[in-house]
């Protein structure tokens, strides 16, 4: 996770990521046989990896370029980029991409990340019982199975649910969140469920910051926000990058939570890409198309990751 890397780069000391890699000391002069012999011990693992990891992945990529169906046609054939063309002309797909972006930005980038950092910062100053209690509650939400969490939040958001009971009690107007703002409801649900992870990452990162630095800044008269902005954030930059990336990739593939809460509905107002994929592949039996969409989802994930890497210039 966030072990202090050996080549700690100080804040601002941007290392050019595109520098030539240091050549391994024995790369060129080694006879082929010796390196083959050296590779022997890892070969069983390599074969297993190829068999059970790379094989299915390659097969998946292949399927995305065919019109394979689970049922409904006798033969499948290679169709080239047809599935991808279909996707980009498919309003439902574009809607799913948009909702996936909304869901990811709200629940992962803004929600889990910020809330996780806030909780971690506040907990550093809190007394031990408070820390234990808060941490316990937040982590409980995280370890609950996805389906259980989904039902809990369904019960919380539905029209006769807890949230509206509270709003009624406060004499505020209530509404059926799952019907009027489904994508927000599932985003909040994901924040509720996933914040613990960010909190843990940031707690660990904040503990890495040497006391002296913070104290020196305090002596120099820097206020809380300035310390946060100029010292804390730059020092935990790498953790932010790692956390954002893990969070985003996790959020992009959330399925169960949304499935239980809204089934992607009403209409397709909360149908993110994983739900769209499921509908295409298993409800409409279009395995080829579903797989193509999965590849596009992978692309969305890599885009996010690239942006983070560029913005934060961290190494993972």
């Amino acid at each position, binding site marked *: 996770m966030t072990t202090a890397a050996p080549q700690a780069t100080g804040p601002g000391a941007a290392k050019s990521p595109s520098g030539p*890699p*240091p050549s*391994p000391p024995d790369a060129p002069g080694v006879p*082929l046989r010796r*390196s*083959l012999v*050296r*590779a022997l011990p*890892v*070969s069983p693992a*390599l*074969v297993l990896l*190829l*068999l059970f990891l*790379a*094989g299915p992945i*390659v*097969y998946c990529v292949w399927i995305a370029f065919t019109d394979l*169906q*689970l*049922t*409904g*046609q*006798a033969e499948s054939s290679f169709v080239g980029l047809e599935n991808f063309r279909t996707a980009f002309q498919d309003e439902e797909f574009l809607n799913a991409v948009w909702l996936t972006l909304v869901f990811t930005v709200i629940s992962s980038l803004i929600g889990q990340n910020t809330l996780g950092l806030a909780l971690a910062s506040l907990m550093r100053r809190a007394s031990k019982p408070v820390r234990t209690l808060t941490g316990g509650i937040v982590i409980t939400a995280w370890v609950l199975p996805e389906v259980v969490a989904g039902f809990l939040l369904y019960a919380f958001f*539905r*029209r006769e649910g807890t949230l509206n009971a509270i709003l009624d009690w406060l004499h505020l107007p209530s509404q*059926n969140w*799952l*019907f009027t703002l489904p994508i927000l409801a599932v985003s909040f649900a994901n924040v509720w469920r996933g914040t613990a992870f960010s909190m843990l990452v940031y707690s660990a990162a904040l503990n890495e910051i040497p006391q002296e630095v913070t104290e020196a800044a305090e002596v120099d008269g820097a206020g809380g926000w300035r310390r946060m902005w100029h010292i804390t954030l730059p020092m935990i930059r790498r953790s932010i990058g790692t956390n954002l990336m893990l969070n985003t990739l996790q959020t992009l593939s959330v399925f169960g939570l949304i499935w239980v809460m*809204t*089934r*992607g*509905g*009403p*209409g*397709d107002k909360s149908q993110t890409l994983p739900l769209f994929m499921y*509908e295409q592949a*298993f*409800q*409409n*039996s279009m395995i080829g198309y579903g797989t193509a969409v999965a590849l596009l989802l992978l692309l969305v994930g890599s885009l996010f990751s690239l942006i983070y890497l560029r913005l934060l210039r961290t*190494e993972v």
Partner: protein
Amino acid sequence: MPVRPTAARPTALLIALVATATASTACGNGSGSDPDTVKVSFKQSTDNSIHVMDDYLAGVKKQFEKENPGKKVELVPIKAPDSEYYTKLQQMLRSPKTAPDLVYEDTFLINSDITSGYLKPLDPYLAKWPDWNQFMDTAKTAAKAEDGKTYGVPDGTDTRGLWFSKDIFQKAGLPAGWQPKTWDEVLTAARTIKRKVPDVIPLNVYTGKPVGEAATMQTFEMLLYGTDDAGSQDPLYDRASKKWVAGGEGFKDSLSFVETVYKEKLGPDIEDALDPNVMTRVRGEWLPKGKLGIALDGSWLPQDWLKGSGHEWPEWSKELGLAAMPTQHGQAPGKVSMSGGWTWSIPDKSANPDLAFDFIKTMQTKANAQKWYVANSGIAVRKDVATDPAYAQAQPGIKFFTDLVASTHYRPAYPAYPKVSTAIQEAMEGVTTGDQPVDQAARGYDDALKEATDNQVVEK
């Protein structure tokens, strides 16, 4: 952390990959099962307290093994909800290594599986099986494919009609022996309930994508197959040209009916109607607690009210009345029903098809079939069982729903059907929420239909 490149060179990688690919697609020949064992796959309930099918099959297995010494039956239960069961089954059917000898197929998808070449035509067997003549004509078409061959033996069916609360009807001043003759009479009754019994839901018709196929079949097709579009042929699919039918007058009228129900607030609140759990509420809450006047729903409802079901309701037969769904203007035959259900089929890659059919024969003797219909709250498809007083009196409502089989329709469940069904649900949802007027929703359906069926669409 830069990773040290391993010594395995690209060629080596490629060779390994090719080896993997060939290993994983290596073909087995025959299921490798023993010729005296028939492997039977069926859908086990995900509810551990329900083992109706397991018990029934265990009984038939015992009988079969006694009558055929030396033969064995191996039951292969698949514990999954419907949609996952289909997926699992389709994967099993793809390879002779994993294909069972007998499978339990939903009529919803059977035609897709036939087109995929997963199943064997049963005509040669049926020709030599006298009991086949006991099956009702409508039921014989349950698993009849476009090639005219039959691929499955139905083990019962289900029908649909109107359930109504006698108590609410009494309060609204409606007759206890209510039987509407037209759609308007259904709506009029709902309006009367709304006026006189304001705190209940007058009429529930499923709608929209969240409930899925239930919206298509329990509501839309129950309407559409009672319009002039139906007439002598299928209003969704033209068998002659093998094309899907674009939305006609009857299609729009059916959408209008749904629109009216939700526009006039004769149905549940829209947000409840579009909640994926609404079906559970109708069965478990609204009907038993007297909060719903009329429900257009399936013959299987009482299954949920039996002992040990979580919401027992033994008095249901006294508190609910039943009426057939009328045709639009009372056109002949005056009532309409849709049917689904499951069939027993033999996979194309089965190793023991003959033995498998022998097992079907044992399952579908009059006595065994009757036992199964009753145990499963299913509707008889055998004439001799349907007329047997012991069957008709086994449960309240059975006679009513069995009489509907004569005027029932099976869905045109060809490969594109699931997608067509989704398109119907979307059109329904548009008129339910009021986002789309009927004409626009129908146009949307036509577009979606062309997309779902690769332009295999015909205008009527």
